[in-house]
């Protein structure tokens, strides 16, 4: 039923798309992690202004589609004179998006650390900033890791949306090849396979990290 010849022939092209997917994912993942941790800390800060700014960021991102966010960044920002190019627009859009979800995961981790940890730290004379950095965050990260892992995996799949801003990643590669070969099943199956490889690899790496962080 499947046309194996076609699949073998076109696989390298899809692989090329997967490489771009991977590259975008890695950048967005790192940036999104920074956004997430910053927003989580701001949302727990004592300053009501910072707190509501972080709350607004999380709310607006989580309540609108990524597609629209990408569109506004790529097509909208240049109208304000800011042109990031498609690669960095894609990375920024994805990072802002995953950042909001990461923020909630990390905030959940932070508030899951028993309050006795902060009290013990303060009673040793640590400033709240030092206690956060040395005592609370390391424990919070471990609690948040499974959620963060979920977000990473969703991110990898969401990269398919950057095809709307001219980036030829894995999904778009498949679609282009469908356009010339008219073999949708073969192409989508290969794309699905490559996504599964990327996400499964990520899961495995995260499983390792989780084991490492266990204490």
């Amino acid at each position: 039923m499947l046309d194996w010849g076609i699949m073998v022939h076109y696989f390298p092209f899809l692989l090329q798309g997967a490489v771009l997917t991977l590259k975008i994912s890695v950048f967005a993942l790192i940036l999104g992690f920074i956004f997430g941790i910053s927003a989580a800390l701001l949302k727990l800060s004592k300053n009501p202004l910072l707190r509501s700014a972080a709350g607004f960021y999380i709310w607006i991102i989580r309540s609108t589609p990524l597609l629209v966010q990408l569109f506004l960044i790529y097509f909208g920002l240049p109208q304000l004179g800011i042109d990031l190019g498609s690669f960095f627009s894609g990375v920024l859009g994805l990072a802002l998006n995953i950042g909001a979800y990461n923020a909630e995961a990390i905030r959940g981790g932070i508030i899951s650390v028993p309050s006795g940890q902060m009290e013990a730290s303060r009673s040793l004379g640590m400033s709240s900033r030092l206690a956060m950095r040395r005592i609370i965050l390391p424990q919070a990260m471990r609690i948040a890791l499974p959620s963060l892992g979920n977000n990473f995996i969703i991110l990898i799949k969401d990269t398919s949306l950057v095809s709307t801003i001219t980036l030829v990643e894995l999904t778009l590669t498949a679609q282009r090849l469908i356009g010339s070969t008219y073999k949708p099943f073969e192409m989508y199956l290969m794309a699905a396979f490559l996504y599964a490889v990327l996400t499964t690899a990520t899961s495995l790496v995260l499983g390792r990290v989780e084991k490492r962080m266990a204490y």
Partner: protein
Amino acid sequence: EGLDDVKKKGELTFSLTGQYPPFNFVDDKNTVTGFDVEIGKAVAERIGVTGKPVTTAWDGIIAGLIASKYDLICGSMAITEQRLKSIDFSDPYYRSGAQIFAGNSSDIGSSADLDGKKIGVTLGTTYEQWVRENIKGAEIKTYKGVPDMILETATGRIDAFVTDKIVGAMAIRDKNAPLKLVGGLLYEERMGIAMLKGNPKLKNAVNKALADMKNDGTYEKISMKWLGIDAR
């Protein structure tokens, strides 16, 4: 067999993207209309059934036909060797061609000036392949629709784009798009109504309907109404 099914249902469904004015698009009442739509409906009428347009994404339009999600594609699809390998086409129902468009103050004067430039095309169209084969050093960017490419030309992220001549011309006329036509047609395209392979009865019925329309003036009326020219 295709034709009998259609007659039994009393309905002929044909698909298009709905994002390709003036051939197919939604009007200010949010109904799908345009040249393709009226042609499709007229064809259905002549077969003795009602025609019903179905909008779908261009990426999946052929897959949908193969999966029998609709009877025809009447959405400005060019007849190509590649496509003929997997689906069948009626006789051409209009002609147009690939045209280069650039910003109206651009210094691009002909296709020769395009070497090494950034060129936009819509995803999955015949233009992408042509540009790839014929323009040296071009950097190709793919978009989901013509409006995106107009924006991109305005902000200078692409230097020019290739699309259907009539589509671009209408955007300039009706939407004041800041574009100009560059040079003549790159090549001519003949658009057909696509259907599944192995349906000679359906194909004959569609072809006969098209021929009748061309003969009795119906076609010309539709074409003048939407395109301002007779596009046969």
